[in-house]
């Protein structure tokens, strides 16, 4: 057959190899550096764990405390990871042999990390396990282990409107406090109008700090919304609940705005209905995560005839155990209650850290918390933090690193 590449001569494979060998022979024979700027940056932003110590405790109200956390070089953390305002840390604690995790939004300014400081603010939840433990046990000097900053409840200039109406309830103030400070420091670039719901004046967290921030930063405004019937109101206060009407009153009249929500689950249920009345595009409404889900049996689509207790056979790093638990608890909780540490960050179905394989059995996942990848559903992967057992289960759960 006639060649289409007539003028080319075939190169001898041996000469090609010799040429390559020559290049290698001349190369540096030191151990490869194993690093570069991209890797260093990834490591700085996403440390596997951060080992910190409580440096200060501040009482914010009855059963609400802020904890200042600083690096603990003795355990290997020299500096704290930078974060975008709105992110949370997952706290790892062991209570009576139970390895558990909880998410807390960082309430300090991103800039404070450069001085080696994070602040978490923990509010007691009635009957709550971890909030109670932290409030009772954390004191100056306590060694604490936290995750890297996590989450997606952040301002994104290419997506969000220039003005954000922040809707906060109770301890849901924490991410907004960080955002307001980030705006003041020039780390974020947007207008924040915060409608902060509290029962009465005495219940407002960070009242002075919010007022000072408002003074220092013209792009931040706070309106306290007090729900107690006899709450005193006045300049800068509103009475009642966060309603569509109230949002309209403070939102820009002739420009788009985004609404960010962070607060207790009951607040989401109420405010979501109000937001519907505003007819905003979905892209302009963002929720911080739902938090841990309780009492699945109250859901309308929860099946009948679920046994009270179930057996879970779980393989983790090659070892298999069988444990028992209540069908009212999430799979993650059952594992923890049996002393099995499982990977988790958000505990709200969203982050995917707890991703595990369900080999047999059935679970219930509330619709609001269904953030699994599509193929996961097809191949039997679940998020144990928001999966409730309906039958006995066989699971493969990754090691909690």
């Amino acid at each position, binding site marked *: *057959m006639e*060649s*289409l*590449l007539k*003028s*080319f*001569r*075939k*190169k001898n*494979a041996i000469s*090609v*190899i010799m*040429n390559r060998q020559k*290049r*290698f022979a*001349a*190369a*540096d*024979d*030191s*151990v*490869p*550096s*194993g690093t*570069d*700027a*991209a*890797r260093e*940056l*990834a490591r*700085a932003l*996403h440390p596997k764990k951060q080992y910190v110590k409580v440096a200060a405790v501040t009482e914010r109200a009855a059963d609400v405390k802020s904890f200042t956390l600083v690096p603990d070089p003795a355990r290997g953390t020299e500096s704290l*990871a930078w974060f975008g305002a709105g992110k949370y840390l997952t706290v790892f604690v062991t209570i009576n042999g139970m390895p558990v995790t909880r998410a807390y939004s960082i309430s300090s300014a991103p800039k404070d990390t450069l001085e080696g400081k994070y602040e978490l603010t923990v509010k007691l939840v009635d009957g709550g396990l971890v909030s109670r433990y932290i409030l009772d046990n954390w004191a100056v000097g306590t060694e604490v282990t936290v995750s890297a900053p996590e989450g*997606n409840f952040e301002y*994104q200039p*290419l*997506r969000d409107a220039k003005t954000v109406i922040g809707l906060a309830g109770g301890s849901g103030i924490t991410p907004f406090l960080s955002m307001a400070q980030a705006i003041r420091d020039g*780390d974020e670039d947007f207008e924040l109008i915060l409608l902060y719901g509290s029962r009465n004046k005495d219940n407002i967290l960070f009242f002075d700090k919010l007022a000072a921030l408002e003074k220092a930063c013209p792009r931040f405004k706070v309106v306290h919304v007090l729900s107690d019937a006899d709450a005193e109101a006045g300049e800068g206060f509103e009475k009642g609940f966060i309603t569509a009407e109230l949002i309209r009153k403070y939102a820009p009249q002739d420009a788009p705005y985004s609404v960010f929500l962070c607060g207790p689950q009951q607040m989401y249920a109420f405010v979501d209905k109000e937001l519907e009345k505003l007819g905003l*595009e*979905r*892209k302009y409404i963002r929720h911080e995560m739902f938090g841990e889900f309780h009492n699945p049996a109250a859901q309308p689509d929860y099946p009948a005839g679920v046994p009270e207790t179930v057996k879970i056979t779980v393989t983790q*790093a*090659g*070892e*298999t155990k069988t444990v028992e638990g209540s069908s009212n608890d999430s799979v993650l909780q059952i594992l923890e209650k049996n002393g099995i540490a499982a*990977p988790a960050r958000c505990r709200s179905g969203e982050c*995917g*850290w707890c*991703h595990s394989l369900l080999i047999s059995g059935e679970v219930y996942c509330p619709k609001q918390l269904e953030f*699994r*990848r*599509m*193929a*996961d559903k*097809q191949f039997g*992967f679940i998020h144990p933090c928001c999966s409730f057992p309906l039958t006995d289960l066989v699971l493969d759960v*990754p*090691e*909690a*690193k």
Partner: protein
Amino acid sequence: MSNNYDVIVIGAGNGGLAAAAECARAGLKTLLLEKHNIPGGSASSFVRGRFEFEPSLHELCTVGTPEKPENVGQVFQELGAKVDWRTHNSTYRLIVPAKEDDPEGFVGENGVRVKVDAAMPVGFEAFSRKLDSIVPGSYEPSMKIFKLSTLMFEAFDMLGSGKVNPVKLMTKYGDVFKMMSHTAKECMDEVGLPEKAQGIFTAYWCYLGGPPMRIDMLYYMAMMHGYIKGGASMPHLRSHEMSCAIDKVIRDNGGEIRYNSEATKVLMKDGKPCGVEINGKTEVYGRYIICNVHPNFALPDLFPADQIPEDAKKKANGRPVAATLYTVYLGMNRTKEELGFHDYSVFIAPTADSDEQFHLSQGKMGGGYVIINCMNEAIPDCSPEGTSILFLTGICYGDVMQGVKPQDYKKMKTKVADEMITRCEKTLGLSIKPYIEEIEIGLPPTFSRYLNTPYGSPYGYQLDMWDSMLPRTIQYGKDQPFDNFLFCGASQERGDGYGSAYYTGQKAAGIVIKKFKEGK
């Protein structure tokens, strides 16, 4: 369970998945370790709001049909891994914007001044005709190139069949050897493809990371041929579907997979690897280790410094790292029709010359070109009704993050994404920004974090003429640091791409399986 394995595979990227699946299917006691909590490496997905994004896959060129599967299709069929493939019948559209005063400029389809606007169809004949209509005189040379690549695949088939006829190989397929040892540029010149047509012909170069001046024609056509011949395929549920399907094959065949399990050390005995330390605490032992981690990180991270063979160190230091991609993922609250998209892939290039595009991408982001993909063109139901998914990709080389502090990183991400989106809006004459409902921006540190590769590059080592597929293939054995420790993935002979990675995993597994059969 005993902690002794026949083979331990480090890393569940495409290479590691394929390797573990082959080993498990051959009945070897197999352990696959992955530091992330899901399989796939690049081949996964992530959820934001009501969107599920594809992190890496633009298109797969060799899936074929269920009746006649091609390379990647065959891998899945042989493994028994089921994937719901979606094929689409388009290649790419290359647009080179023109300045106002550029004499070559004209007003293109979108009402924007361009120098090149080439929407290329599938099919050798149709592609060549279209090329000719843009650059007269291109038809014959273009058809010659496809003739060469057709010959090349025939030669591959013969080599693969095991019935090699050396005389026929040298006489009938002599040109194939020439393609192997000449650059794409040299070959295009030799068949007389006009300069301007060459830029259009090689627009896919970014998927290989090497420009036509530096990669051999065989390598370029091995990819190009498949795309033009049969269009491209995508898994219906993002790459995560493919990775889950292989995960299942491994487990169904008795293999063990551990996620969240980072190999932190290779255990040595008598100067040879004998096991792996996991997460700095657990030890497991294996006769063979297949490693999907890039050698430039695997060697210093996993081995004691005095146990790395000199040759391995020189090879790691002597080979430039390939391209890094960076991507903006957009969940749009409008349909593709409402937005005005009707192409799956648009390549927006600052210049028509591929080699110049390569030079503009050195050491920085934003210099080279932007690929914009509209996923709904390939998979109409990939996002909820009334929405669509776009992703924008750029290419860069080297340590582009130098000097960037953690506190500046978010602003940098926004700036890079803003520039890319703005460029797309201007070039396509449409509006994107007001409709962004979800956005995620992956820059080199993002990929570094998930892939654990130098500069976050997904492409392995630069496939240059001196280190092309040919010498890599011949020297495969010599490139491995120990005879029971084999690398697989993009760093190996075929470079980047899903198909290449699966191939290298299967190849490493094949070697291990053979040695077991021989009782070694």
